[in-house]
């Protein structure tokens, strides 16, 4: 019998771990090379892990909900199972106990002892955080900063080019508080948030399902945002009759380029132009450093409803793209979000976010800000309403908008001025021409 350990392969640039959503195979199954063996959730995307070789599944090392690090053994298979059983050479029999003795037991050892006085074994297991792996892309100064903040740099998915771990990444990780190092399972749970139990009333018909995968991530992110950010929402409406006309004339043009033009790219353009006047809407608060970070680039996230839950694809450098390019990118990202095919990098780095919940329903909403951003904009369904114009009754089309702000940074009056400036652009799309760069 030829036992082979199957390790979790690299699953994306800069991704060091993933949460096991479900096994797609069971002990005893015969699997083929490249067959999907597990569903794994990383940051926000769920990926299927392929088997590197075929064989019979002997052992599954993790349970659903466990966090698996890249390169750790996730299952053991018998590679002989597919073909004829060849007599195992004695050499191999002998070699078996050795790795067994060395291999870490499948539940990772708690590192509680690590921060106390050194109990040196001479084998190098007693320093916390562990030394940066050679594959971690971070400058020597960043590696040292992580160490001084007790952040395990190996656990950070870098946001920089080619997955580089930046100084900001380390500070952010330090802030989220997953540094206590008492357990090996790194959850993003802020230490201050209570986790009350739910007591079932006797005899009630209920079903319990594990909170995991993208749902768990959404839950954590929303809880953190609400915990950290004092939210407030301002609402208003805009007469977009002219914009509707403009879109009508542009629609066939866009179709010539093979794309569908929606209202979202117009909203994006008007928002970016307005945000330029109000830079605090394109900022973040660095709580650890007690600094406000003003961003000089415009990456716009837009909420996408997918079968797996809410995802937020990001259009990078949206200020440098035309309405046509934005339209194409929106269609592409939204389609791939629904199909679960977005790369992690395509869901990171937004500087503010738009929710288009109105296309599903509702006059107004009070959305939750996507931390560490400081504002989220809502656009809602278009309705025809009677208006009085020059003493005559007329019909006009209105769209409702909301802006939800982080009150630590943005005051109510500023938000009101911001919304007014934005609505002026939506009501007079010609102004957008003036904003063109």
């Amino acid at each position, binding site marked *: 019998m030829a036992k082979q350990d199957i390790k979790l392969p*690299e699953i994306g*640039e800069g991704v060091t771990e993933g949460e096991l959503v479900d096994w797609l195979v069971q002990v005893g199954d015969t699997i083929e090379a490249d067959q999907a063996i597990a569903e794994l959730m990383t940051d926000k995307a769920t990926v299927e892990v392929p088997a590197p070789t075929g064989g019979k599944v002997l052992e599954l090392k993790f349970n659903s909900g466990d966090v698996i690090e890249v390169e750790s053994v996730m299952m053991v298979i018998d590679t002989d199972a597919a073909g004829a059983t060849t007599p195992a050479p004695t050499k191999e029999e002998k070699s078996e106990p050795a790795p067994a003795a060395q291999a870490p037991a499948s539940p990772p050892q708690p590192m509680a002892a690590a921060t106390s*006085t*050194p*109990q*040196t*074994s*001479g*084998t*190098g*297991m*007693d*320093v916390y955080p*562990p*030394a*940066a792996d*050679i*594959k971690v*892309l*971070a*400058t*020597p100064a960043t*590696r*040292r900063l992580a*160490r*001084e903040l*007790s952040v395990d740099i190996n656990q950070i998915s870098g946001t920089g*080019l*080619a*997955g*580089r771990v930046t100084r900001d990444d380390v500070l952010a990780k330090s802030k989220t508080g997953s540094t206590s190092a008492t357990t090996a399972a790194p959850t993003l749970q802020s230490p201050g948030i209570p986790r009350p139990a739910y007591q079932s009333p006797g005899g009630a018909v209920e079903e319990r399902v594990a909170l995991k995968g993208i749902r768990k991530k959404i839950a954590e992110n929303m809880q953190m945002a609400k915990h950290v950010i004092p939210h407030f929402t301002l609402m208003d409406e805009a007469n977009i009759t002219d914009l509707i006309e403009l879109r009508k004339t542009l629609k066939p043009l866009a179709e010539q380029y093979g794309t569908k033009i929606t209202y979202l790219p117009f909203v994006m353009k008007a928002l970016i132009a307005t945000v330029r006047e109000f830079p605090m809407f394109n900022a973040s608060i660095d709580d650890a450093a007690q600094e406000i970070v003003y961003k000089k*680039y415009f*990456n716009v996230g837009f909420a996408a409803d997918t079968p797996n839950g809410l995802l937020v694809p990001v259009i*990078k*450098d949206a200020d440098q793209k035309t309405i046509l390019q934005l339209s194409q990118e929106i269609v592409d990202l939204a389609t791939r979000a629904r199909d679960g095919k977005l790369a992690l*990098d395509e869901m990171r*780095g937004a500087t503010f976010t738009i929710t288009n919940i109105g296309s599903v329903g509702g006059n107004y909403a009070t959305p939750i800000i996507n931390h560490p951003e400081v504002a989220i904009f809502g656009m809602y369904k278009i309705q025809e309403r009677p208006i009085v114009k020059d003493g005559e009754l007329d019909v006009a089309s209105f769209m409702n908008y909301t802006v939800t702000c982080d009150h630590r940074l943005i005051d109510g009056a500023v938000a009101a001025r911001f919304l007014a400036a934005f609505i002026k652009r939506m009501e007079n799309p010609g102004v957008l021409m003036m904003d063109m760069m």
Partner: protein
Amino acid sequence: MSQSYDVIVVGSGPGGYVAAIRSAQLGFKTAVIEREKVGGVCLNVGCIPSKAMIGAAHFLHKLEHDSKEMGIKVKGDVDVDMEQMQKWKQGVCDKMSGGVNQLLKGNKVTIVQGDATFKTTTSIEVKSSKGTETLTTKYFVVATGSRPIEIPGFKFDEKDVLSSTGALAQDEVPKKMVVIGGGYIGLEISSFMQKFGAEVHVLEAQDGLLTGMADPECIQVVQRKLKKSGVNLHFGAKAKSFKKSGKSLEVTFEKGGKEEKIKTDKILVTVGRKPNSDQANLKGIGLAIDERGFVKVNEQRRTNIPNIFAIGDIAGQPMLAHKASHEGVLVAEVIAGKNRVYDAKTVPAVIFVDPEIASAGWTEAECKANGHSDLKVAKFPFGANGKAVSMMETDGFVKMIADAKTHVLLGVHIVGPEASNLISEAVLAIEMGARLEDIALSIHPHPTLGETMMEAAEATLGHAIHIIQKPLGSATKRNGSGARA
């Protein structure tokens, strides 16, 4: 009488003296124990004197070979006065050693001269001509280094059978010299002895020189040049014994199942170095030592005894002075309670042969072993570099290896003039996680050898200016600036 310290460093080489100075800077009462000269092997019988000799040999070589073409006429014979050269070399070493001495004193480090023997995990005995004293301390840093390996039948007497130490102290150039071991120390000494006029025979047990020590293509350049210059290379040759008759020596070696003999004046044995873990009673106080003789340490260079640290050659490969110094700073700061580990991505290695070889990061084989299956690799020759041409030193190249997808630099291998001085840029690039574009887009001054780094990065991206590469067709994908800077 018992003196008490916070930190005692045993050994004052490039690991020990650096650890001592940083400890003192951090406010510790520090002593350093040295049995020979301050500065250790590196400053006195290793790196520094060998570079002095190599520098002199290079100068002589240029005078004999290049000066005529450059239009410089030497009237009369060019002669090597080995005795004067030894005096000059010794002057260089004394200056360096004296400098370290001053630095230690300036930082209020006590220098204790003598042979050290550990008594307990907190006390040590030092014997010297002045007598014996016992010192106690809270922390020890073991930096006792390594020494040349002896092989059976060739005991070092430093008269007939030389170690590197003896070879660097020759008062005259031997007519013939047999060098056992084609590693970097053997070849550095072979190169300069050959230039001073010795007939050199290198006996190497393996199929090639410097195996596993450098990029195979770099080694090829050096091997070719050694052969061309007249150094005799014997591969697959195992030295067996030697006989002395009168003043002449005869070395017997086995090659391809046959015995062969060479007559010689001197024998140099350079088959490697071993850690000095059998000395100073390290085992006696219970220090854990591995099967190759290195003191076992963790990422902080702490041994199995928590108040004792070990650095440099005695604490593991690579046995290089600059690694030892880096560890010296590290342990002093760990002792001061700072959270530090050894997490350098690369230790550069330099071989001072002709031309020099220097490397940082991984070779292609190492990249593949570490999971980078898709690589971009290219070379830029010194022959296309103006400065190299004007120096008349155009042998060699800069080779870069990067991940094909991310363009992150994984390895740089240089063979050529001043490779030793060029490699630091590669080290910084690798530590910073630089991509090829980062090097290619940094303006390098002209005319310098350093331009070859920029050009090699461009070549690896497929479009160096000063060599002809395939045109940049539309098929050439440039994975340039990513989503966000």
